[in-house]
């Protein structure tokens, strides 16, 4: 047990994966000596060598495309995309090859590839460094899309992603890299909870907040603040956005009657849309208000001086709760 940041927890998870399976490789830009721009791979090239921790040429399609070939050759590539806004050059390889190749080969050629993607805003960065592209990947059959909200999950989930024979888009909430928690790095991932199961991180009765990644902390803070107004909010950390754990959310909504989905990504066709549609179908008679969504606007991510105006925060979440309760 030691207090660890999320960045260090992922580093520890990667280290374990490299230790446990000689076929695991890390690939990406600046992940070697520099240890990545967020230092998530710090020290790994030194300890595992340049053949297993690979500084790639500056070409995302090339990185993912060669990862596909390495997977065909029996390796388990873990790709780091430096920032969310730089994943698009690799979109064809991800959507056309990584996602579909297993089905194309009738299951003969699995794609055990993990694509690590620091995502989300709130770090005062320049354009392309604050995006939330998860919906693109969640809409793509063949991919799994998960995101940890805390260091402990980060440590376990990154190892589960790497151990999976399915390709996993692993979304790292970059603004939570420095959040700390007590980490027991001896936990056996085989016994850990499935990364595709949502988790109720706060019990409540008034309404349900569903969120993932960076918004989990925001929603917990909102729930805490709401206590003052006598509101008892339930908070669910989805953990996986593809697939979605509908039963866990539905069970909560049957209890609270109200659901608010919160994410940084644009609301229009964001994860909240799918969750709203499904939960409404599952819990039609239990819902006392329509599922409300709090998220990004239908605009490019703005200059960072507008981070706070753009990103969902405690107040916007509570405003939605008020609107839901007004029904």
């Amino acid at each position, binding site marked *: 047990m030691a207090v660890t940041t999320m960045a260090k927890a992922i580093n520890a998870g990667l280290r374990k994966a490299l230790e446990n399976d000689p076929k695991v*490789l890390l690939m990406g830009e600046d992940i070697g000596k520099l240890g990545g721009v967020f230092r998530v791979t710090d020290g790994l090239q030194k300890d595992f060598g340049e*053949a297993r921790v690979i500084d*790639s*040429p500056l*070409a995302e*399609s*090339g990185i*993912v*495309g*060669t*990862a*596909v*070939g*390495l*997977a*065909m*050759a*029996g*390796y388990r*590539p873990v790709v780091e995309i430096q920032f969310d806004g730089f994943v698009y*050059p690799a979109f*064809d*390889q991800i959507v*056309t*090859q990584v996602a*579909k*190749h*297993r*089905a*194309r*080969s*009738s*299951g*003969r*050629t*699995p794609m055990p590839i993990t694509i690590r993607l620091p995502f989300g805003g709130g770090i005062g960065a320049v354009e392309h460094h604050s995006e939330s592209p998860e919906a693109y990947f969640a809409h793509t*059959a*063949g991919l*799994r899309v998960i995101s940890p909200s805390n260091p402990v999950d980060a440590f376990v989930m990154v190892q589960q992603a790497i151990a*999976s*024979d*399915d390709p996993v888009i692993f979304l790292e909430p970059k603004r939570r890299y420095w959040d700390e928690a007590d980490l027991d790095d001896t936990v056996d991932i085989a016994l850990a909870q499935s990364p*595709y199961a949502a988790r109720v991180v706060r019990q409540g009765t008034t309404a349900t907040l569903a969120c993932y990644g960076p918004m989990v902390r925001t929603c917990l803070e909102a729930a805490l603040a709401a206590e003052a107004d006598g509101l008892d909010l339930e908070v669910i950390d989805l953990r996986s956005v*593809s*697939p*979605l*754990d*509908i039963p866990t959310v539905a069970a909560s909504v049957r209890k609270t009657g109200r659901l608010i989905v919160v994410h940084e990504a644009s609301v229009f066709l964001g994860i909240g849309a799918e969750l709203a549609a499904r939960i409404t179908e599952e819990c039609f008679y239990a819902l006392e208000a329509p599922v409300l969504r709090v998220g990004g606007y239908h605009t490019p991510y703005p200059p960072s001086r507008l981070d706070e105006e753009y990103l969902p925060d405690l107040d916007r979440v509570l405003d939605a709760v008020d609107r839901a309760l007004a029904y």
Partner: protein
Amino acid sequence: MTADGGPELVQLLTPEGERVHHRDYDVDLTPDELRALYRDLVLVRRVDAEATALQRQGELGLWAQLLGQEAAQVGSGRALRPDDFAFPTYREHGVAWTRDVDPLQLLGLFRGVTNGGWDPHDHNFALYTIVIGDQTLHAVGYAMGIQRDGTDRAVITYFGDGATSQGDVNESFVFASVYNAPVVFFCQNNQWAISEPLERQTRIPLYKRAAGFGFPGVRVDGNDVLAVLAVTRAALQNAREGNGPTLIEAFTYRMGAHTTSDDPTRYRVAADLEAWKLKDPIERVKVYLARSGLADHDFFDAVEAEAETLAIGLREGCRSLPNPEPESLFDHVYAEPHSLIDSEREEFVRYHASFAGGQH
């Protein structure tokens, strides 16, 4: 650009069937090996012709003909070791043949009963790749794997002249060069990308592209099976010995339409076709074998007969290729259980059962 490939063209067997020598490349083949190459060429062309016919008869939705490219594919395919790995486009039926893929398995994709067709690992031959250029990066990645395995296997990847414009193909050159990967880039320059002539993709010979990335490029007569074999063997050997990638431009011609849905009369003149007919990849081998007394009528007849049998088998096999089970939609999308797939499959079964039940 010179229509005949220019002086840099590596050739060991002229269109007239004359065996010529080249300062850098040569092959020393036994009569059996020479006859075997001729057999490959004839059978591969026959498979292609039969598949084209099957498409006309409505048995296939589409077919991408290799007519004219037999030597480029057989020559390079036969240069491979069984444990080497090949990454094709959608037109490498001749290479598939050299990798012992049953021709019938090639038809599945074009008949619409599968998006794949064979086990890549049984044949060290990847599935066909339709999205132009994607496979070249897979080849480099596979070669990076070989480097880590520490074996002396090599990889070859196929692509066309049009593909050389794709970012992925050029990135594959960068990665292969930087990592010195054991990969051979085999470009079949058949002069056309559907309706677009070579001039839409480059203003210099394609083999020169390699120099810009720091590895050797060579242009070979793609209709000369011996030259292709020699050049590809050398490139593979180079890769095995740790000398990295080579780009081979096989200078050839797409004698047929791009695919059975294409109409080349809209964009190219018959004269070109006539000129290239004189450079037929099979005829020159036949002439050489006959002239040099390495094969007689009986041999040629036997190959024809074998081709006929192969064609009949293909025809029958194609018609009896089973349609996929509707429910197979949901198979193999994921390796591990997936709640959404499970619920959609359930719903799918319920819905189809509703017909059985005569509800509709």
